[in-house]
């Protein structure tokens, strides 16, 4: 493995230059001694070349979209256009402070205003806040809006959110954070919301329902209207987790099919790069009567065409979820993407994403078990159950994890595995629209190869990966021998 940067330290080396101090003074006359740090900081000292070599070496250890196929279900790993990266680096964006007078940031406000509107149109919602910086924060924001709505109506008892057992982990976690109690609904035999079961859970203390649509199995919840009717019947609100919006662009407006609140993942559907874990952007759209609960500020337009930050709904607003206006530069990227695609382009996105997913599903369902074998939307869930059954000996038994690791050897990223929880040995496969048929075919062939390796050469799976920068890693050791910083590592090494 690559050395850490700390092992490249050499006392006195440096990788920066600074102007000479051009005023008189010294630190001791500015800061009383008691406030001064004792001793030198132990940061590494390296040259610019050391730094470049180090991080380039690290970079070469990653899989990434521009290296190869990344069928990570639920994550919509589409191509991130280069033009976004170029344009977002304009000094007129990068070097703008969030608390500048509004007359000096009219461009930023114009852009945010347009993005609010475009996302509202795409989702069929009345308005959209751009403040949440991730999907989970969007969920939290949306749930807070639901909370605020009920409180506003004096319904303090409405503290339960129902969500399917196929929901993403952030859904229940966000409910807790927003002060709700979570009721998990078992999915029916088709992997969808079980209406009868749902009926049995409906009561006056239900605050809302959280649904991912298409759901995490890649299936459109056809009964969504029925669900909405049930929830609305007790004045509950329908929340849509929009992580899977890539299936619906220009095809369905969530706001028009029963949802009252939803979040977007701009880092999925709208092509902003994921950066190895973020920053993303998780705007939230709501129906008309909920707009007053959205975080402050919203961007509004004056009659004279100028824009302003509007806090006029402060008393009803849930407040703020971010210090400023969210991940502005991600929002710029999403704006560019939407402007380049337009209505027709966005519909093409979903059309192609859906065709690509169905194509893979169709080609693979003879080799891998697919529980819910109907046309999928932009992704589908296969599983490793057929492979698991091949060997009884638990040491030899093939798990989805083994299939995933073997895929790495073949140059592909693995699908999302073991999610949704309701499918055993799940493999959630999402190709996105930016991949070509050739690439899909190569992936399909690799999967078929793996299916036959599982039968003929199971060690190739059990011991995979072989060709990656490191072999399979010991997760248990990572927890048991905790080594979360370089000093821990040094200590462990000493103790060994």
């Amino acid at each position, binding site marked *: 493995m690559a050395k850490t940067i700390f092992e490249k330290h050499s006392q006195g080396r440096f990788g920066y230059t600074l102007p000479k101090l051009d*005023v008189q003074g010294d630190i001791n006359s500015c800061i009383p001694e008691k406030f001064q740090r004792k001793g030198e900081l132990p940061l590494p000292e390296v040259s*610019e070349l050391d730094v470049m070599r180090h991080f380039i070496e690290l970079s*070469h250890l990653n899989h990434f979209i521009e290296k190869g196929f990344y069928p990570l279900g639920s994550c919509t790993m589409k191509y991130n256009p280069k033009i976004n990266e170029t344009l977002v680096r304009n000094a007129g964006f990068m070097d703008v402070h*969030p608390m500048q*007078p509004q007359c000096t940031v009219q461009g930023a406000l114009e852009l945010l205003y347009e993005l609010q509107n475009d996302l509202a149109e795409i989702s069929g919602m009345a308005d959209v806040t751009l403040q949440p910086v991730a999907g989970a924060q969007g969920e939290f924001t949306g749930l807070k809006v639901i909370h605020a709505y009920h409180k506003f109506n004096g319904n303090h008892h409405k503290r339960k959110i129902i969500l399917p057992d196929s929901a993403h982990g952030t859904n229940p976690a966000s409910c807790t954070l927003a002060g709700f109690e979570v009721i998990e609904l078992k999915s029916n035999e088709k992997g969808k919301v079980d209406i009868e079961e749902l009926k049995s859970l409906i009561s006056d203390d239900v605050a809302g329902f959280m649904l991912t649509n298409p759901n995490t199995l890649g299936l459109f919840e056809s009964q969504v209207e029925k669900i909405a009717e049930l929830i609305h019947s007790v004045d509950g609100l329908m929340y849509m987790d929009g992580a899977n919006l890539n299936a619906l662009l220009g095809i369905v407006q969530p706001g028009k099919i029963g949802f009252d609140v939803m979040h977007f993942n701009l880092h999925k559907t709208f092509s902003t*790069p994921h950066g190895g874990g*973020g920053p993303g952007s998780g705007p939230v759209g709501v129906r008309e009567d909920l707009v007053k609960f959205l975080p402050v500020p919203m961007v509004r337009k004056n009659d004279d065409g100028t824009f302003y930050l509007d806090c006029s709904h402060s008393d009803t607003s849930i407040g703020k979820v971010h210090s400023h*206006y969210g991940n502005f530069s991600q929002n710029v990227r999403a704006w*560019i993407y939407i402007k380049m695609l337009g209505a027709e382009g966005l519909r093409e996105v979903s059309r192609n994403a859906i065709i690509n997913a169905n194509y893979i599903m169709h080609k693979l369902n003879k080799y891998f078990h697919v529980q819910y074998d109907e046309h999928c*939307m932009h992704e589908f869930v296969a599983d490793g159950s057929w492979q698991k059954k091949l060997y009884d000996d638990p040491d030899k038994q093939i798990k989805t994890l083994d299939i995933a690791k073997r895929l790495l050897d073949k140059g592909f990223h693995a699908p999302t595995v073991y999610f949704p929880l309701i499918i055993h040995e799940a493999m959630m496969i999402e190709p996105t629209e930016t991949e070509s048929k050739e690439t899909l075919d190569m992936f399909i062939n690799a999967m078929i190869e793996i299916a036959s390796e599982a039968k003929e050469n199971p060690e190739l799976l059990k011991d995979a990966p072989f060709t990656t920068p490191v072999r399979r890693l010991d997760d248990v050791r990572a927890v048991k021998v905790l080594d979360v910083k370089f000093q821990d590592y040094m200590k462990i090494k000493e103790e060994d």
Partner: protein
Amino acid sequence: MPFISNTDKERKEMLEAIGVARFEELLVNIPEKLRLTQPLKLDEPLSELEVTRRINCIAAKNRHSEAMNSFMGAGVYDHFIPAAVDHIIIRPEFLTAYTPYQAEVSQGTLQFIYEFQTLICELTGMEIANAGMYDGASAAAEALLMASRHTRKEKVILAGTLHPRFYDVIRSYTEDVGLELVIAPVKKGATDLDELAKLIDKDTAGVLVQTPNYYGCLEDMQKIDELVHAQKKALLIAAVDPISLNVLNSPAEYHADIVVGEGQALGNKMNYGGPLFGFFASSFSLQRSMPGRIVGGTLDLDGKRGYALTLQTREQHIRRAKATSNICSNQSLACLAATVYMCLMGRKGLREIAEQSTIKAHYLAEKIGKLNGFEIAFDQPFFKEFTVKTPIPAKELIDKLVEKDILAGVNLAETGMKNGLLIAVTEKKTKAQMDELVKALEEVNNG
């Protein structure tokens, strides 16, 4: 369509393979009446050249710190960033990777996070740091939740000198989960320690103090340490400016239990306030209550060193409703920028930046303090930022200076100081720029 790979021919082949005649057949599960019948009402698509022109035109309507003389701060700072930082974070290897779920093909991301954690621990003096939070404000909010979780108490005390945006976010994060927020009164620009002492009791989960505080003043953390830890009852949460830690006490020196802060100043552009990122560190004993991702070193099948996500049972994808936080995607790339930045600057460079900012801020404060009508608001030690009492309302003053291409600072009106102006100075400010501000302030008062 741009960015869509397949051609009509390929689409046709695929539909055939799937066994449908038309794409629409794949939508069987979407009831007809739920489907859009009209195209979305969006602008006509722009080509790359057109969108470039449009963006340049929009960006030109923003005025920025490279073209104005800016003294804006309050948590988001215009520090010098070596060019090399962007050359790393723009690499698609980092930029277009997802969260490192498949460790074997994500060692680049995992190792930089491990190094980030190490650097944050070095900076703060703490024992464990996570892979970063959404921003400083949400990190502070999560720290309070963590303190409450850990101590099983519900009352948390916030210094009244806290950044108001931190306060806002904390309120959102805590109000629906039963936490009681108590604000400690302010005296002369710093926390009133006598009052604080009175507020801390056996029900107190944690005390959150920011230093330098919103007014730029340094809090007496040694004293606060004593107060908070007197009977080991509550946790001390420090919110700090990471740049300041190169000259100011490390939070470990005053026994902070949790340290959070806004990390943007470490190698990230201001970007109209986002992406920011929060850093989050604590003592080992709190590790199981920590929010967010943590990377740990481990070994692979061949006994070779490698990195993996660790302590995952705290997280939402495993613990769901009982997770320590709902955070999933974080601000990873901003943390990478911070990591590269800290490596480039090293101990000497960061120290120099902190010292220069301090000395320049004090130079400017002295000059402004001598101006007729102006006054340094608080007689407290400060780092790179200080509060000025202005002869006219700060808002007016700021607007007037915009006309002279100066961003004078942050208006403190919402804290009750209508004539309060918060001025930040980084190492980037030249003497000439500071003198220009002084002259402009003088003119405001005279004219």
